[in-house]
């Protein structure tokens, strides 16, 4: 496939190399995009990885969303470019207004690192187009602020427009409607709290993350 996929690095990001390793193993060509640089180097798709951009200070993603790279990514997304936000990346996308809602502290008020079961609710997104509706996937979560919330009106919109792409079978963090991942109305911007890049290698546990990243890589191919 050989799609060029940009992986953004903010000060404090820490999952960028993991995302690159997982994408490269699946045949894509990942490259790092420095947060202060607005040149996206002609990539076919963008991944905003997990970590603690700007220390999560003020609010997770609150500072990162104003970076030059993010300004370019907002344009890229408005032009239909595929964008995937993982964990901290999901938080950045909501702060940037590319996805609705917000992520709050886990209802149990503790950091949670564990494998969870997700259910595919919609296959109509750049992340889930290779999956089947109702398919279950075991993918790890790793966060303190993964509790998805939005207004009732927004929830109705998300539900009626099939924008909820992944839910938790057993809600670990209090997320509204068990939401683990959503997409925008044009289905090219997706965000999820679980880490698919951590479920790609047989030695490390589940490999259910592969189908999600393969979908994304394929989505990048389609967008070119």
């Amino acid at each position, binding site marked *: 496939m050989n799609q060029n996929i940009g992986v953004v690095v903010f*000060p*404090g990001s*820490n*999952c960028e*190399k*993991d995302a690159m*390793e*997982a994408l490269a193993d699946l045949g894509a060509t990942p490259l790092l995009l420095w947060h202060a640089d607005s040149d996206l180097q002609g990539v076919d798709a963008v991944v905003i990885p997990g*970590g*603690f951009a*700007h*220390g*999560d*200070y003020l609010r997770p993603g609150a500072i990162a969303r104003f970076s030059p790279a993010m300004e370019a990514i907002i344009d890229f997304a408005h032009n239909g470019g595929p964008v995937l936000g993982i964990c901290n990346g999901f938080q950045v996308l909501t702060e940037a207004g590319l996805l609705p809602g917000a992520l709050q502290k886990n209802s149990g008020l*503790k*950091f*949670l*690192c*564990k494998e969870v079961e997700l259910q595919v609710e919609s296959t109509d997104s750049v992340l889930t187009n290779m999956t089947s509706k109702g398919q279950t996937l075991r993918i*790890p979560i*790793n966060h*303190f602020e993964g509790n998805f919330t939005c207004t009732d009106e927004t929830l109705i919109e998300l539900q009626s427009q099939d924008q909820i792409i992944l839910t938790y079978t057993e809600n670990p963090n209090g997320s509204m409607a068990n939401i683990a991942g959503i997409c925008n109305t044009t289905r090219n911007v997706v965000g999820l709290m679980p*880490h698919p*890049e*951590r479920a*790609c*290698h047989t*030695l*490390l546990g589940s490999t259910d993350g592969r189908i999600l990243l393969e979908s994304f890589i394929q989505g990048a191919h389609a967008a070119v």
Partner: protein
Amino acid sequence: MDDQLHRSLGLTDDELAKIVEILGRDPNHLELAMYSVMWSEHCSYKSSRIHLKRLPTEGKNVLVGPGENAGVIDVGDGIAIALRIESHNHPSYIEPYQGAATGVGGIIRDIFTMGARPIAIMDPLRFGPLEDARSRWVAEGVVSGISGYGNSVGVPNVGGEIVFDETYKGNPLVNVLCVGILPKERLVLGQASGIGNLAVLLGSTTGRDGIGGVSVLASAGFGDEEEDAEKRPSVQVGDPFEEKRLIEACLELLDEGLVVGIQDLGGAGLACAASETASRGGVGMDFNVSAVPQREAGMQPFEIMTSESQERMLAIVEPENLEQVFAICNKWEIRSSVVGKVTPSGALRIVDDFDGEVLGEVPAASLHEDAPLYERPISEPDDMDTAITDQATTLPGPEKIEDDLFDLLMSPQWATSQYDSQLFLNTVVGPGSNAAVLRLKHPTSGEDTGRGMALTTDGNHRWCAINPRIGSAMTVAESVLNLACVGAVPQALVNCLNYCSHN
């Protein structure tokens, strides 16, 4: 100067006499402050060095043994591993979250100061019984602190231990191990060298954090109570975000070959970093205390030199590389300031501007190497006989055996689920097993060598209390067996020995 001042700083009369002998005169406040922190038990190991000298420290794969910031071994394929374990017990009893968090920060700095990227930590923890409210508060705070700092700085926690026992009530043990990986050519020591080279301070501003005992100098000779209250030492607060940027900046400086030596700042702060780097290099240093970026107004030189503010490193740099060093630090938003110059004299001179007043002058090696060596008296504990002759058959049996069984079965998952154990995609066997097993990937190319690295921490206070020698030997044996259980061959051992005060 007050005759008893040295005693309130924790120095004995003999130690003061030794200082006077070294200097050929009485020390001033600043010099006394530096000796008192550098010759403290924590920094100098003055009561334990004669014993620690007996440990076996040589091996064909050892690249760096004791005496530096971390041990380093060669593991083949051009890869080296840095390893160290340290304690942060007392601060964790006072302020559990920050005590544990800054403990994690400190050990991680000891690793990346060698040129290694920290890739895993482990936390062997000991707390008082869960029935005791304070012990519970300490345990929860410590685990949150390790989680909060470790996850945020981006180093996975792949294992450890949690033990609850009456003996730790009021005296929790918070030990943290860190392991790092480096390409052999990036190995760097905490040594100043090259006359005319510059000492550059990287990282956070310097405040009154952790000044502790030396803070008595603030009140010595000052009358104003309100002023004194402002000079109270602050609890050290860790900033994992600063540390993460510091890791990236330092490793980039090392990859670019811009650093001759580098040391992290921990106990005894700048006094330690400046004197140790100079002493190890057999050189001197002029240290400009006015160039140190300060977080608080009106800091005195002795405060600046002994502050334990977190997330700071001291790098030795050739002058022609300075601009590039600044550029890389700016990219990572790390403060960088020239604070010292390497001199041939062997003296650590604290100055107010490089051309300004000399505020203090001591032989650098005297702070680092000439701390007294004590052979403390040894005797068996009074209750030794009773302890040894305890027989399982004569001890009272459990009231409800099922309660004891449940206690034994308690899962540490309440703690380990708060730790990111998966970052870097290396963790094949994570917390809860005999030993952690990590993939060994090349530190620069990221290529999987196909080999793995196993890690374990072990301790047993009961065995060691009954028979320190055999108990310790059995603890080492347990570690070896834990590694064997996951198919690994032991390569190196680091220890963190926690005891009550020698006096």
